[in-house]
């Protein structure tokens, strides 16, 4: 028989011998402990020692628990913070929706007020699309079937003039905003009665009163309204307020910039003035 096989066999024998010894020893210990309670005194001593160790280690245990609880609470706080942040975002969204609805209701109430205040012909229009290009500032609006909306009608918001109908077909009309580069409105300064023409500058937040001699009495904050000249459109629809006046070096005209009073960007509902109108539609605040 080869020597290697003998060595392996001997190793196995040794292993099993050791295993049986230890298993036997363990079984004996179990038997003596459970049946004879041989180790109860040792167990008692050990438990005393344990109490002593636990007492000694109690402060450090507290410290460890505090340490763990610090990290646990920190993690929990971070988790709660994350949840609250998500909740806040959701609520912010809802709040913004509510604010938008509130704003729209206010706008509609103002338009209704205008409608009720006036005995003149006007029809509600709703924005379908808007072009915000600097070269073309237009809206497409929808109105109720049968409403006599036609080219040239003024579109007004609760605060003032928005634009003019370019053409209407069916229940849809194209509207050129007063801020369009090609738009012009004949206006009058409320304070002085000076008349002029306001042109769009291609941006929704900006208008320009052109060809105003430098010596003209005009101040920042002056409100300009439609002049009503020609009889087709009413007098007194607010158009814009002066925001800056600059004298030009090479010209005898001032550069006067205005801010439209109507909210050209945000509103969704306007009124189309479709009939002969009087001059008492808007009552300026100041």
């Amino acid at each position, binding site marked *: 028989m080869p020597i290697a096989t003998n060595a392996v066999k001997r190793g196995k024998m040794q*292993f099993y011998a*050791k*295993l049986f010894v*230890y*298993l036997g*020893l*363990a*079984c*004996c*210990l*179990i*038997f*003596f*402990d*459970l*049946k004879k309670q041989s*180790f109860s005194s*040792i*167990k008692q001593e*050990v*438990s005393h020692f*344990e109490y002593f160790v636990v007492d000694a280690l109690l402060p450090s245990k507290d410290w460890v628990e505090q340490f763990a609880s610090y990290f646990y609470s920190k993690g929990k706080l971070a988790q709660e913070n994350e949840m609250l942040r998500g909740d806040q975002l959701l609520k912010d969204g809802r709040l913004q929706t509510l604010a938008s609805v509130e704003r729209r209701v206010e706008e509609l109430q103002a338009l209704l007020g205008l409608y009720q205040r006036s005995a003149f012909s006007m029809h509600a229009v709703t924005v379908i699309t808007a072009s915000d290009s600097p070269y073309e500032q237009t809206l497409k609006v929808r109105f109720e079937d049968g409403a006599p909306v036609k080219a040239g009608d003024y579109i007004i918001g609760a605060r003032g003039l928005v634009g003019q109908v370019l053409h209407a077909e069916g229940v849809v009309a194209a509207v050129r905003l007063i801020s369009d580069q090609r738009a012009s409105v004949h206006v009058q300064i409320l304070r002085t009665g000076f008349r002029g023409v306001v042109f769009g500058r291609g941006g929704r937040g900006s208008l320009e009163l052109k060809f105003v001699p430098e010596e003209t009495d005009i101040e920042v904050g002056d409100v300009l309204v439609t002049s009503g000249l020609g009889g087709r459109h009413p007098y007194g629809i607010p158009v814009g307020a002066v925001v800056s006046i600059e004298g030009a070096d090479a010209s005898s005209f001032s550069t006067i910039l205005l801010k439209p009073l109507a909210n050209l960007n945000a509103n969704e509902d306007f009124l189309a003035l479709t009939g002969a109108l009087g001059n008492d539609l808007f009552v300026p605040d100041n």
Partner: protein
Amino acid sequence: MAVLPQKVSNKKIAWSIAVGLLFSTVGLSGISRSIAPDVLALVIFYWALIGGDVRPKMSIVFLLGLIVDFAVGGAIGIHSLKYVLLLAVAVRLGNRFQMSIRLKKIAFIVVTFAVLEVILGGVVLMLVKTPMDIKSVFAAAIWGLTWPIVEAVLAKNYSRIGFK
């Protein structure tokens, strides 16, 4: 045969056993002792399975079991019996274990722990007629599912180990 091509130092095994001993004696806060893992048993079994020549010795395992028994206050010798049996199973079936696929390895560990728990429960039942705690059998088996974690840690730290 050394299973780990990159030999694990005895120091590392000693440290892991010390940590296992600490957890097995002190217990894990928040987990009832009947379902808490016997961390030392897991450590011993895992090292015995993969440690090859550097696996824990039977005498040391026996002594560790005695320490746990005295510390926990249970039947003296029960943990010694458990650890010795675990070591014996690991020594006899370690090579076959190494050759198995991961699922078989997990199944082997789970079954070993469950069977061992039943054997120990049976021994106690035989001697003092204490009913076997079926929860502890399930818990012991379930803690055997920690093997993939151990395997992942070892694979990361001992890159030359070819785990199947």
